[in-house]
């Protein structure tokens, strides 16, 4: 998608030059600003939503004003999504605290306004990102950064196009989801297609481009066992394909086939965190103790010990059911010698056991 106007000299060193470092520095600043802007937007939007609640609750509001309130609320919710998209753009997907899978429908809702803003004003956007697609095992921030880079490249490639068009379509292909991203811009010549994923390769003046967008995007997706490909068959414009592995716990069909978990944890705060982590890994909670046995039972050490010694009506443990205890380093290992356990003071580590 970079303009095929000024191919880089193939003899040029791939080491960054001073102007490239300057551009990187500028990018880092823009990233920080984007994060700050998203943060501030949220701090403004929430008070407005709260005030709209108060206005809407008044019994004396005339119908026309109520319609205005609803319209303002919709605008605010759009801003809120925009703030979420800015957060995704400014986050580091490699951070351990980042959620490592993406629900594509809500992700696209957040990112789409940013993509639209990046494209020329008269661009026709064709989109098909169905909410029923399975979750993918790639952080949402990585996906956001890749598609924003593709949108910005497309924007430049379509500058001279009378009727610019940008297309984002996602579909499942076996154990992957593929997102095709295409534009009707000037396209790429053979050499550009060949080299576009090389670090620091750019077809634009050095002071305008780092040449790192596509190579970084491909590296981000590859680090999640995905890939970023260029469609070499595409003649008019350019098409890139984001290849994304399906999240391991994601059910093939909505609500069916997903792995299950049962909780035997008394502390409501611990339970809330455990439910969050389990949900983020696509596990479905079982509240009953009947058959079939769940894939995981996570519980207080004593509760698990009692359940294991006397299964009865308290719950069913199957041959493949994995027990995980929640406890403390000074007591739990003594209660359950052969059961993996997590420290109640750092429950985020339980994600590593839910594989």
């Amino acid at each position, binding site marked *: 998608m970079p303009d095929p106007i000024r191919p880089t000299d193939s003899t040029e060193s791939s080491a960054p030059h001073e102007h490239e470092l300057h551009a990187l520095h500028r990018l880092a600043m823009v990233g920080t600003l984007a994060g700050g802007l998203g943060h501030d937007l949220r701090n403004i939007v929430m008070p407005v939503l*709260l005030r709209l609640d*108060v206005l809407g609750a008044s019994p004396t509001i005339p119908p026309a004003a109520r319609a205005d309130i609803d319209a303002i609320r919709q605008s605010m919710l759009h801003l809120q999504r925009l703030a979420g998209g800015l957060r995704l753009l400014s986050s580091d997907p490699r951070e351990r605290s980042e959620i490592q899978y993406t629900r594509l429908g809500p992700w696209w809702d957040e990112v789409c306004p940013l993509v639209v803003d990046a494209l020329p004003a008269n661009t026709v956007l064709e989109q098909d990102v169905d909410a029923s697609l399975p979750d993918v095992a790639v952080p949402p921030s990585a996906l956001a950064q890749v598609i924003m880079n593709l949108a910005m490249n497309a924007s430049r490639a379509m500058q001279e196009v009378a009727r610019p068009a940008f297309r984002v379509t996602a579909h499942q292909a076996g154990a992957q989801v593929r997102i095709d991203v295409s534009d009707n811009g000037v396209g790429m010549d053979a050499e550009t297609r060949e080299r576009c994923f090389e670090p620091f390769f750019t077809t634009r003046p050095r002071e305008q481009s780092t040449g790192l967008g596509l190579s970084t995007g491909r590296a981000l997706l590859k680090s999640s066992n995905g890939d970023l490909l260029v469609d070499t068959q595409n003649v008019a414009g350019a098409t890139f394909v984001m290849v994304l592995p399906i999240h391991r716990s994601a059910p093939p069909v909505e609500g069916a086939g997903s792995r299950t978990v049962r909780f035997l944890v008394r502390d409501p*705060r611990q339970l809330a*965190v455990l439910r*969050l982590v389990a949900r983020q890994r696509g596990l479905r909670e079982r509240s009953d103790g009947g058959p079939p046995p769940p894939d995981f039972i996570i519980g207080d050490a004593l509760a698990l010990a009692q359940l294991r010694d006397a299964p009865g009506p308290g719950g069913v443990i199957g041959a493949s059911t994995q027990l995980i205890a929640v406890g403390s380093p000074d007591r739990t290992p003594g209660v359950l010698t052969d059961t993996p356990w997590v420290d109640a003071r750092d429950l985020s580590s339980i994600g590593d056991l839910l594989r």
Partner: protein
Amino acid sequence: MLATCRRSGTFSDEGQRTVKTVSGASAAETAGSFTVMCIDDNELLIDALERRLEIETGFAAFYRVDDFRRAAEAAQERKPSVVLLDIDLPGGVDAMAILDELVARTPESRVVILTAFPGGALVSRAMSAGAWGFVSKGVASDRLIDAIRLVVRGEAVIELED
């Protein structure tokens, strides 16, 4: 009256709001009403939140904290049902340290963490440290109000955007 804490709310008689905590139940559960203290530097949010809570059944009083470094002291004085604590406080104030102090000094007040940009590890850290709730400022306003009500009832809540 603490210099660090300003009160506003629907009751003028402070005696009406003083309810003794019994057997682990919060004061609010016992009385059927609840009070909220907000530790945040965003005046727009604080004012709007107070107005919004005023139309909630059972809401009794709202406290705002001017001096974050004395927030735990203010909470100990007022014993609010729920303390909303912004994790991103200005001036190098460590909100997690405030959380620790609140949990130690006012266990009957349940802390709900507010943040504009939630992170997975932060949720776990805060809840493990004793917070009862963790709410992103990116959720719809009714989810924030619902979270406060659920925490008052003794349920732990994590509300992040989908």
